[in-house]
């Protein structure tokens, strides 16, 4: 019976309850989810096609797996008597220490702060590179947090581990470009101002092993049995490697190799753990 309702095919699925005709452009995920037995047949596209919604769900689940407790809890530090009754007093609490002790920041907060500050760094280096080295020759100057923002690095990537100066590591090597870390020889300029500081980057020597060579064997010369051993890196190379500055937290995060990306992501049934897409056929929705 016609109630005078005009059906309009619009291009977007309605957000509100109700229904509408939509153009059929392929397998609809919501439909296939309702018909799990047809799933294998209906599956198209690459295994990594995830929608924004699925991505958000994965992120949410990962965040849940990273939690310390199931619910948010706060366990305050018990209040203690700060008198000398049987307790070792460590002396007066300095303002800096008090600030650290009272900080409620999480690691995520620190990381975000650090990255935000390091994002400012390239501009700072560019400015600094036009000037001669701005590192103070006497490193006795205490870093006050207020001065931390000042561009304080040389163009040579010399790192100033200033307190509150998270710019430090940004001059570090990009992933896998070890050979560019060549400033090892430049770095100690400022440091040498203080004569009695030892160089931990002491000379490196290549030495022979202490064990005797094994007895020769007639098969040694057999071209089929010879294996080729890559030559050792030179001393400078090793020194360079050892002198490389630490990477930042994000740079050390292991990557997802291209080969692994090509492989389909394994899916397991949530109920029984067997192979499945969302649920295995047995427990299909």
């Amino acid at each position, binding site marked *: 019976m016609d109630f005078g309702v005009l059906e309009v095919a619009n291009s977007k699925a309605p957000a509100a309850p109700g229904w509408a005709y939509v153009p059929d452009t392929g397998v609809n995920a919501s439909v296939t989810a309702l018909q799990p037995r047809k799933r294998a047949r209906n599956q198209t596209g690459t295994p990594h096609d995830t929608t924004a919604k699925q991505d958000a769900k994965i992120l949410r*689940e*990962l965040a*849940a*797996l*990273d939690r*310390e*407790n199931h*619910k948010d809890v706060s*366990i305050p530090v*018990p209040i203690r008597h700060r008198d000398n009754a049987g307790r070792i007093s*460590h002396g007066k609490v300095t303002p800096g*220490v008090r600030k*650290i002790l009272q*900080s409620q920041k999480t690691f995520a907060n620190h990381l975000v702060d650090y990255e935000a500050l390091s994002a400012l760094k390239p501009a700072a280096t560019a400015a600094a590179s036009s000037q001669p080295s701005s590192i103070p020759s006497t490193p*006795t*100057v*205490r870093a006050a947090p207020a001065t931390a923002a000042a561009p304080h690095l040389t163009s040579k990537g010399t*790192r*100033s*581990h200033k*307190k509150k100066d998270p710019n430090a590591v940004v001059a*570090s090597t990009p992933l*896998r470009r*070890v050979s560019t870390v060549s400033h090892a020889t430049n*770095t100690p300029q400022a440091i040498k101002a203080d004569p009695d500081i*030892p*160089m*931990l*980057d*002491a000379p490196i*020597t*290549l030495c022979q*092993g202490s064990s005797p060579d094994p007895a020769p064997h007639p*098969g*040694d010369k057999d071209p089929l*049995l*010879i*294996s*080729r*051993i*890559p*030559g*050792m890196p030179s001393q400078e190379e*090793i020194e360079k*490697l*050892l*002198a490389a500055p*630490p*990477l*930042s937290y994000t*740079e050390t*995060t*292991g*990557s*997802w*190799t291209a080969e*692994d990306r090509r492989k389909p992501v394994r899916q397991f049934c949530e109920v*029984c753990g067997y*192979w499945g897409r969302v649920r295995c056929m*047995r427990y299909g929705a």
Partner: protein
Amino acid sequence: MDEGWWGGNFWAHASQLTPRRDPKFLGFQLPTTTTSITAFYHAKQRISIAIMAPTPGSRRTKSAGPPPPSHTLVVDNGAYTIKAGFSSPEIESPTPSIIPNCMARDREKKVYIGSQLSKCRDFGEVVFRRPVDKGYLVSWEAEKEIWEHEFFDQKAPLHCDPREVGLILTEAPNALPPLQANCDQIIFEEFGFPSYYRCPAPTLNAYNDIQSMFPIPPRVPLTPQLPAEILLLIDSGYSHTTITPLLQGRPLQSAIRRLDVGGKLMTNYLTRLLSIRQYDMRNDTYLVNEIKEACCYVSGDFKADMERTWKGPKGDRRLGYATAGGIAKDYILPDFHTRSKGYVRDHDPNAAGKLKNLTTGKSAEAAEDILTLRNERFAIPELLFSPSDIGLRQSGLPQLVMESLSALPFGLWPGFLANIIVVGGNANIEGYLYRLETEIRALAPAECIVRIGRPVDPIVSTWRGGATLAKDVDTLAKLSVTKQEYEEHGPVWVARRFGGKE
């Protein structure tokens, strides 16, 4: 440089041994002809590196400071536990205490600090606060409370006066400089340690005798050369797993890699699976952690194990499903009245759990709460090898080892691959080493020998390295910073020094 580090000489000896039949060591199957070994050995150049330690006496020529403290407090400040203890040249065999690095509160609202947790009898619904977040010391408020309780209080188990002992403190690699600065400041300004060495935890492992940790020790016991010349250290802990190549105890910073899978993630994943499939365990992570430690193993053949634990499709049940070829295990949950600790036993299909007994009318008290674990046992540690199973966009540990090596010159690969050591709590998981070795061998160049070893107690290995270092007063003094130097040169200088820059 001693023989054995590269592996060539090592195998020349090993070929004279009888190959072990243990399937665990199948990965170590020896080449069949001696010819190939010797030729192989000869073809390679005798190469090795030694990095000279800083010339003795270059330091300590300095103005008369106070003499270095006679004892050193070695603190491996992990996210889950602190490994701490004293070491000095006089202490014959230093031993660490393992202290939970947390504040916990049970359902009666009683708060436990650090080692007090051992007094807790009821771990139901215990919640935790941990000062170490993602492996890095973040909350000094809580950490100070725990340290005070463990070290500085009058009745502390490891009582000491911070102004009279030196300190070796570990941190996770690639810490944020602001956090490192906070740490230095607290150590000197709040506690007032006279001398202090902060270092990435993996580096201390180089001070252990690593050659004795490999499954087949060298034929002639070598005098350990400390620190180890070359070592690829995999530290798999509570927060994450890091890969650190070390030369002469110094990290190759550009090659350090981190996999964001650690004990916490695995425990939480097991919690989720158990909560979906059996009981709601979301408020009992402590218990789930014990289940994980008792039951989980790394599968040598994931697909086959998965098939074995499959129930089969409807109407076509697999026969061996119930016991799944010995994979199925029952974990008897503690009830915190008669039993405060759970335990594992083989799955018994006839032993009914509490639920079944209730329905058949037997008394509920007699019954036990049983969790039956099947593919959960190996699907959890599988995350280390296939993080994408939970949507984590990282490659597995073996791939990351290769990624780490790819940042290094090819000439160092044989040395690193032949000297891989696994430490941290996850190294205790059964089957971990075998699987890691098999997969790395598959990825590594065919000529390279892959050896993976594990210390007897992988949890305290880092601490033991630190204790050994503390016995060598001169080396430690060269690495440490004194309070006087801190006051003279300031925190920036200290940070640079620990960063290996001065």
